[in-house]
C-alpha cells in the first residue's frame, strides 16, 4: 500500500500486488455482504439436542386431573410430542386447534407449561381445548433451557426410546401438521 514511497531494490516488485490488495479485500467484503443480503434471513435459534436423548427430568403436575411429565414417559416405545407452551403466550392460542387435530389423529402429546400457575393453565385448557396426556410445570424454564429451546411455543418429536427427532420452533400452523405426522411415523422406525 505504501508502494509510492518504496525505495529501489526489492520494494516495487513486492508492492505491485499490494496495490491491488485493497480492491481484493473490498471484493471479499462485498461478496460476504451480498450473500448476507440475499440469503433468506433465518434468525431462529435451533436446538442442538435434535438427535440426542431427552435430558433426565421429572416435572410436577400443574393441570387439574393430569399427571406431571418425566423423561421416563418418553421411553415406552411409542413416539410422542413434547409441547412447550404457556398460558400467557398468544401464539400458543393460535396453535391449539392444530394440537387438537394431532390428538384426534392419535398422537400422544405431553406438555410443559413454562412459568405458569395452575389456575391459568386450567383456564387456558378450558378455553382453547385440551390435547394433552400430561402437563408438567417448569416455573423457572429449567427444562426449556435443558432442551435448548429459546421460546414458547416449541414442539419436539421424541421417538419411543426417548431420542429427540425433530424440533418445531414457533406455533404449529395447519400446513405444518402433515410434516409433524411424517416425522412421528419416521420416529416409529429405529434410526
Amino acid at each position, binding site marked *: 500500500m505504501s508502494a509510492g514511497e518504496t525505495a529501489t531494490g526489492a520494494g516495487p516488485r513486492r508492492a505491485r500486488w499490494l496495490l491491488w490488495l485493497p480492491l481484493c479485500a473490498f471484493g471479499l467484503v462485498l461478496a460476504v455482504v451480498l450473500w448476507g443480503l440475499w440469503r433468506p*434471513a433465518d434468525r431462529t435459534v435451533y436446538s442442538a439436542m435434535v438427535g440426542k436423548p431427552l435430558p433426565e427430568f421429572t416435572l410436577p403436575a400443574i393441570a387439574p386431573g393430569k399427571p406431571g411429565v418425566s423423561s421416563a414417559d418418553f421411553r415406552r416405545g411409542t413416539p410422542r410430542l413434547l409441547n412447550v407452551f404457556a398460558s400467557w403466550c398468544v401464539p400458543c392460542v393460535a396453535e391449539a386447534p392444530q394440537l387438537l387435530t394431532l390428538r384426534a389423529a392419535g398422537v400422544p402429546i405431553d406438555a410443559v407449561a413454562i412459568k405458569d400457575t395452575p389456575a391459568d393453565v386450567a383456564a387456558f385448557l378450558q378455553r382453547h381445548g385440551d390435547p394433552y396426556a400430561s402437563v408438567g410445570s417448569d416455573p423457572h424454564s429449567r427444562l426449556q433451557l435443558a432442551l435448548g429451546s429459546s421460546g414458547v411455543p416449541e414442539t419436539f418429536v421424541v421417538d419411543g426410546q426417548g431420542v429427540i427427532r425433530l424440533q418445531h420452533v414457533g406455533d404449529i400452523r395447519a400446513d405444518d401438521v402433515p410434516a409433524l405426522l411424517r416425522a412421528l411415523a419416521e420416529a416409529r422406525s429405529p434410526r
Partner: protein
Amino acid sequence: MTAETGLVALWLAAALALAQLVLGALALKPGADAARAAPTVRAVATVQGALALVAMAALIAAFLASDMSVALVAANSHSMKPWLYKFAGAWGNHEGSMLLWVTILGLAGAAVARLEHRLRADTLVATLAAQATIALGFYAFLLFASNPFARLDPAPADGAGLNPLLQDPGLAFHPPTLYAGYVGLSVAFSFAVGALVTRDVGTGFARAMRPWVLGAWIFLTLGITAGSYWAYYELGWGGWWFWDPVENASLMPWLAATALLHSVSVLATRDGLRAWTVMLAVVAFSMSMIGTFLVRSGILTSVHAFAVDPRRGAFILALLVIYIGGALLLFGLRIGTVRQGKLFEAVSREGALVANNLLLTVILGIVLIGTFYPIVAAAMGVQLSVGPPFFDSTAGPVALLLVAVLAAGPVMRWRRDEAGEVAQRLFPAIAATLFAGVGAFVLGGPIAPLPLLGIALGVGLAVASVAPLAKRDLRRAPLQLWGMVVAHLGVAVALIGMAASTAYTQERLVAVGTGDPARVAGFTVRLEGVRPLVGDNWTALEGRLAVTLDDAPVAVLRPQVRYFTTPVTTTNESAILTRWDGQLYAVLGTLGEDGRWQLRLWWKPMVTLIWFGGFLIALGGALALVGHQWRLWRQRRRADDLAEATAWGAA
C-alpha cells in the same frame, strides 16, 4: 405546501449535482481549460448545497407543525411530543436521516467550493465532480427509494410517536454529529479521487484535505464518546462498550480517520506517505458507507438497528460498489504513476507514524472481520456469535502495542533517530509505566493481564504525551503541538478509565424492603420509598435512595422505571452519583412477591475518565484545527501585505 417546496428543492439540487458532475468532467477533458470552468463549478456546488438545506428546512418545518398529512411525520411523530423531539424527530427515521446526510454533504461541497483556493484548478474541479457523484447517488436514493415528503390522503388524526428511547436530548444530536463526521470523510475521499485523477498527490493536496479530516475526526470522536455514555446510562447495566455491530460500524471509520489524520500530516509537512494517504482516505469513506449500510440493511442483529429494509441495503450497496470499487480501481491504476514521496528510516518519527497507521489498520481489519464473520460462518452452515471475548483478546493486545508506539512517536526525530536516544528520552514514561504496573498489582491485588497492562501503559502514555512540551517555552509552543499533546493525553486518560473501571468495578445486586441497607464499596444505600410519577408522554415509578458514606449523607439518588404508551415500551432511567474517583450507579428493578424491590448498584471507579478522555481527544483535534487555520490565515495576510507593499512601491 411546505412538503412540496422541499421536494422541488430536492429535485433541483439533484439536477445541479448532475450539472456539477458533467461540467467537471468536460473541464477535465484533454485540451479543456479547467481554470476557466472552475468558477462555474464552484457556483453550481454552492447553490446545490443551499437547495439541499432548503429541503431539510422544509422537512423540519413539517415536523414542527405536526403536519400529519406527510407520511413520514405521521409515522414518526406525535402532536403531544415535546418541541425538541419534534425537531430532532425530523432525522430520527430513515428518510429524514438520509436527507440530513445529503444536506450536510451539499453544505460541505459548498464550503469546499467557497473556501478552497490553494488547490490546483483542475484538482479542485475533479474534487467537486467527485463530490457531486457522491451526492447524486444519495439524491437518487432519496427521490426514488425513500421520499421523505410523500403525502398521506386522508391524513391521520395523530402520529404514531417516536421511539421513546430516541427521546433523549443527547441522542437527538447524535446522528447529526456522526453524519458530520461521515461527510467530512466523504470530502477527504473526493479530494483523494480528484488528486488521483489529476495525478496531483502532494503537499498542497494534503493541506487542502487536512482540515476536513481533522473536522470529521473530531465529530466522529465526539459521536462515539457521546454514544458510549448514552449506552452506559440508558441501558441500565453499566456497560459502556458492547462490540455490537452498530457500535463497530461507528468505530471503523474512526480508526481509519485516525490513521488518515496522521498520514495526511506527514504528507502535508514532510511530503511522505503519499500512497498511504490516498488509500486511507478511500478506506475511511468506505468504512462510513459500510457503517451506514450495516445500520440500514439489518443484515446483522443489532440492538441499535431501526427501520431496517434489505432493499435500502441493496441501494447503499450499489453506491458502495460504484464509489469504493471505482476509487480502488483508480488507485490501483494511478498510484504507480504518482511520483515517490520522501524516504525515511525505520527508527524515525515517520517510522513510528507508519507503525501507528499499520496497527490502526490491523485493528480496523480485526473489527471488520469479527463484525462480518457471523455471515461468513452462516454461509458455511454454522450459526455463531462473535462478541466481546473475541475483540478483547485480539484487538486489545494490538491496541496496547499501538499505545506503546503512540508514546514513543512524538519524541522521535523526523527522518532518522537512534533507538538508544529515544529510550533515554522516554525514561520518565517507562519508569511511570513500571511504577504504575507494580503499584496496581500491589495495591489492587491480582487482576486480569489486559486491564493491568492498560493501567500501566495508560500512566506511561500520560507521562510520555506531555514530553514534547518539555524544554519548550509553553507560551510559544504552536497550537498544533498543544493539540497533539492534549489528544494523546486524552487517549491515556480514556485508557486508564477503561482499564480501571473494568478491573475494579464492584457490583451489588439485592432485593431490599423499604429502609433496608445495601452496601457497595463503602457506600450504604437505603431505599426510602417508591412513588409514581407522570411525565410528558410517560408514567414512571421512582425510587428514592439515600446514599451515605461512613454514616455521612452523600446524596439522594432517584432511579426510575418509565412506561411509554406510544409505542408501548419500558425503559430504565438509572441514577448516577458522580464523585471525583468514580460513579455510583443505581437502577431500580421490579417489585418481588415478598414486597421487596430489586436494586442494582455498581461502584465504577475512574469510569468517567473514559468519556473525559474522549472529550480531550476531540479537544486536541480542535486545537490542532484552529492552529493550522490560524497559521494559514496569518500566512495569507502576510502575503497580502507584501502584495500591497509591492503595489505601492510600483505606483
